[in-house]
């Protein structure tokens, strides 16, 4: 079972990507191949293994509630193509 055009369009919409019809075809077949690889993992017997969300052997990494200096605002804004009065400016987003 592969991924069809509609699923690619849905994923592209969630990721806010605009795809051409040709790209949709390409990604549909590529994503299907990737899924196939993962399907082979499902054949492994994991019956005795507890569900794992993290493989790094770290636990309980916490910090004290202390304030440290933030970045200078000009640095914060340095990657923004548009800014105004200390704000980052985007096209209007009103829903």
């Amino acid at each position, binding site marked *: 079972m592969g991924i069809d055009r509609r699923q690619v369009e849905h994923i592209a919409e*969630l*990721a*806010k990507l605009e795809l051409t019809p040709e790209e949709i075809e390409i990604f549909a077949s590529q994503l299907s191949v990737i899924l196939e690889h993962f399907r082979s993992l499902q054949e492994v017997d994991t019956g005795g293994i507890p569900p794992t*969300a*993290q493989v*790094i052997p*770290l*636990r*309980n*990494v*916490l*910090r*004290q*509630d*202390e*304030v*440290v200096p*933030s*970045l200078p*605002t000009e640095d*914060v*804004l340095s990657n923004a193509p*548009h800014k*105004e*009065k*200390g*704000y*980052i*400016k*985007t*096209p*209007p*987003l*009103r*829903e």
Partner: protein
Amino acid sequence: MAKDYEIVIGMEAHAQLLTKSKMFCGCSAAYAQAPPNSLVCPICLGLPGSLPVVNQKALQQTIMVGLALGCKIRIDPQQIKWDRKNYHYPDLPKGYQISQYDLPIAYGGEIKIALGGEERRIRIRRVHLEEDTAKLLHADRATLIDFNRSGVPLIEVVTEPDIRSPQEAKAYVEKLRQILRYLGVSSGNMEEGSLRLEANISLRPAGSAELGTRTEIKNLNSFRAVEKALAYEVERQRKILEAGGKIQQQTMGWDEAKGVTVLQRTKEYAQDYRYFPEPDLPPLLLNKEWVEEIKSHLPELPEALKRRFIKEYGLTAYDAEILTQEPEVAEAFEEYVAAYPQNPKAVGDRIARSIFPVLKESEDSLAEIKRRLPPWVLGGIIAAKEQGKVTTSTADELAARSARGEIAAADVKALEAVFAQYQRIGTSDSLLPVIEKVLAENPKPVADYLKGKDTVLRFFIGQVAKETKGQADPNLVKELLVRKLEDIRQGGTNQ
């Protein structure tokens, strides 16, 4: 013709926690007065290569909320994990919000509400911790983004669909806010957005066990909005159902000015957020002893305090309710009672008569009012009135003007005359023997204090006030009590 429908409501509350720093970085969380984008760092801006680290205080405060709501806390060997909630919107610099999906910190609690003399239990499904998003300012031809709020710790409290009317929803929110404020973990300020609410609501034929299609309502920024928006939505859904129509599952917004709910968007499905475990944050395994310790230090919550006020001071349930609504008021009441323990009821009435109006009509804080009208003055006014030395209207006038800070030189003279026979005991020399006596007579509360139960201080203050017939300065009493108790802790004896 009108069919009978049952209303089914679930609430989702987001509350900002009162930490100094943000959830996953050391930027200050005090964003309200800060210039835009001045409290931002690579972590809360989601720059590549930055790593979030959990704020211990935020975790502790979430555990406090869970415990106060009677939830189970996920402790070792159960894991707490973090998840990424993915969506694209410019209020999220990372393209995802760090939240908790299937293993929240606390789950399975309840809140009791009283409505029309009837007690109702609203089950709490879960309490989890996440991060707040940036603030967007919508201008005419642009949107401006301020990332200062991005990363401020936010808890989410979700109920089961147990609420059966808009009035119950309002009562639930009031109770939740009250508990958060008593715990001291959130300001609960709805106008400033520190507490934000969403409701989901559906109707079903009375007696039916199946749930109807629900709509979600956002932008509920006041108690009134919660009640009004839900009442509006009940009628909107009822009309559709009675006309034989179907409810669309969708998200509505509450338009306060027009008093209507308006369509925001059709429901996006849960899997659209593509939650997955946050790889940058290791799981938490909470130590049982730590959770027990947090539990033993929980402050007295409104229900317990109300019962104590009724028992200890002989207040009516109504008066106890009024005086425990806000934690600051309850605290002030006990300070005032300590200055005049002979008649707690009169003290409560005097607070309602002379202080509540000032709180309501001005921006002045209770702390400020307490400075202007300290306990010994209020106690003196009540004493003078009860002994027939001043009339009720004079007492009203004196208390009201003191509370407003309008006491002129002439009035101070009048006050002095009134309190000529109302001598304060204000020196440590005269108070220490009394305090020592009270501590010696009450070994059990002393032991409780040494175990970390700070709330017994109020009991001791009350006892000292009784011994001194209310003529001791409560602040001094408190200071001396703490000093004496700490002496005992250091190995001194209580003899």
